[in-house]
């Protein structure tokens, strides 16, 4: 992955996001939320730009980003894959699904493939326990999985 280079257009976007929340420090979480929505993740230069706009120490912003697991400093792939590790999925073999995905994509959970196509994350229950074990790729749910099915599913997302 190439390093995120911030340009004037990015800066303008961040400025607008911060302004839409009145440049208030108390709105930091909302600002981070919206920024992550836009950029897909929160690389260092984006956090610095937010710090400059709302006049807050960068360390404090990083403190919030690193505290909440929702915020991420690594980019997601074109097809973000989330594996459900909720109780139902777990007992029905979610760990095996993780292993299969890691093997197939040659990355670990929390990482992105070299080509930027896939990223792998775990989450808790998505409310589809009847289909356990399930994964989500983008907005699509795939259920009643066994490790052998992984290869074919990934083929749909080239």
């Amino acid at each position, binding site marked *: 992955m190439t390093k995120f280079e911030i340009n004037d257009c990015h800066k303008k976007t961040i400025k607008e996001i911060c302004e839409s929340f009145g440049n208030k420090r108390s709105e930091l979480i909302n600002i981070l939320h919206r920024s992550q929505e836009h950029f897909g993740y929160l690389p260092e230069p984006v956090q610095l730009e937010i710090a400059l706009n709302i006049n*807050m*120490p960068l*360390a404090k912003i*990083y*403190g919030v980003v*690193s*505290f909440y697991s929702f915020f991420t400093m690594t980019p997601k792939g074109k097809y973000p894959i989330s594996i459900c590790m909720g109780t139902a999925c777990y007992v029905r073999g979610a760990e095996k699904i993780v292993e299969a995905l890691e093997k197939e994509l040659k990355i670990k959970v929390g990482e992105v493939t070299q080509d930027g196509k896939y990223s792998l994350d775990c989450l808790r229950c998505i409310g589809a326990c009847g289909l356990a074990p399930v994964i989500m790729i983008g907005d699509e749910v795939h259920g009643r999985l066994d490790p052998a099915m992984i290869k074919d599913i990934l083929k749909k997302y080239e």
Partner: protein
Amino acid sequence: METIKLTIDNRQVEVPKGTTILQAAHQAGINIPSLCYMNLPHLAQEHKPGSCRVCVVEIPGRKNLVPACATECADGMTVLSHSLRAINARRTVVELLLSDHPKDCLICPSSGNCELQKLSITMGIREINSVENAAMSTYRKDASPALNRNMDKCVMCRSCETVCNEIQTVGALSAVNRGFMSVVAPAFEQELTDSPCTFCGQCVAVCPTGALTAVDNTFHVIRALADPNKFVVVQTAPAVRAALGEEFGYPPGTSVTGKMTAALRSLGFDKVFDTDFAADLTIMEEGTELLDRITRYLDGDKSVRLPILTSCCPAWVNFFETNYPDMLDVPSTARSPQQMFGAIAKTYLAEKLGVKREDMVVVSVMPCLAKKYECQRDEFKVDGNPDVDYAITTRELAHLIKIGNIDFETLKEEDFDRPMGESTGAGLIFGVTGGVIEAATRTAYELFTGKKLEKVDFHELRGMEGIRTASVNFDGTYIHIGIAHTLGNARKLLDGIRKGMYNFHAIEIMACPGGCIGGGGQPLHRGNSIVLKARMDSIYKEDFNKPIRKSHENPEIIKLYEDFLGKPLSEKSHKLLHTHYFSHPKK
């Protein structure tokens, strides 16, 4: 004021409404132990995150124990600070804190000064259940020129974070990550040198454990002293003499100038000099610069930048270089006394004594951590050789004296060597907030008006308030002066100037509470304002008793200009005694 009555450990207490159990207990002579709690009344900062739970007490009838630091007293309340339940809970809390804490107390830089160690001793903890199985957090160590971070020893009291963000508004440190991995660190866990840290050292001054400690140069000094080819001279900052005694059991505010001088000579320094001499020199340069700017301004020169800001404090210099890169031409270009001393020692003095520059080692004893960084700055080196080789703190000097097997108490008082040990009361008060500007005023008044200043004490410039203002009558012309101590107050003043709110001619800024007397290199005062006040009084008392109290009357300074420098702001002065600033905005 509405008061309430309660009972703590069978003692009746009456306190104002809103008082916490911890404060009420303290008032009744009951010292409930605490760890994360920090109270800095002179800075109006009470830090009570309630995170360590060491101060838990029992309130009969309530289901849970409560933290005394964060629980308000209620009328008719009964509090048990040492019930079996409270003691057991407190012990468990401390045991858990110790379970993932390194057990290298014997060689820890904070050994003997550590609040966690004291707690463990007080509570009589002799074993920690299942400690062998406890997971240890391991963080990267971070070494800077002034202070070290060893976060394995952090107990997450976050006092440093409060000091760095609320009092200093530097914003270098914040709690990051979560759960077991949580730690206080700069953004992206970068190193302090890459962060906006100013090396003021106030985080070290409040850290209860060995997580944040000062860089120790003691052994560099011992090696230099042992080298027969080195000529080692030492300078001592004004604030050091007002606090060094505390390390040897003297009450705060005992001035130990004579004993300190004797101890340094006994340690083997070839010459024992005084930074106060260089402070007098600073006044000659900075005061002349101030007068020059004011005179030109009053004559209608609109290109003059006013107010002039003092530049003696290296943490303050770091602060404005980082936060106010657009105002780099506002501060005085005069170097700090430490650096002026080094520059003169390695030229004028070296020449006088026939010592080669590379054979001379200049050691400075400072109340400060930022001085360690300052003396390593490239602009204060000649062909790689620094003007000041090593800066050590007041605490390190106390340590050196102990290593040197010197019985401090029985030392006979001695005087500084000449020429660079001659100083005035004006140089001495550099150690307290308001002192630099008072010293400058004493000299500037006489140079500006051509009249003798009869009343040397400017009480309107003294005190402990964070921001002070005064107008001094220079024979009909009023000079408006601003004073700020702590970087947070400096920021308030500077933001005001940017907005055009103030009309000052001169501003003095010191980064530490109370000025250098409250520096990060001083005996740890843990925010005790009585200690600071005592040190301050001791400095003003010593100034009052000095035969000469104006910098420009220092005979050795007069001689230095006659023999070597010419006059203030001369070409030679500019080369040796002035500097320039660099913009390095960091967030």
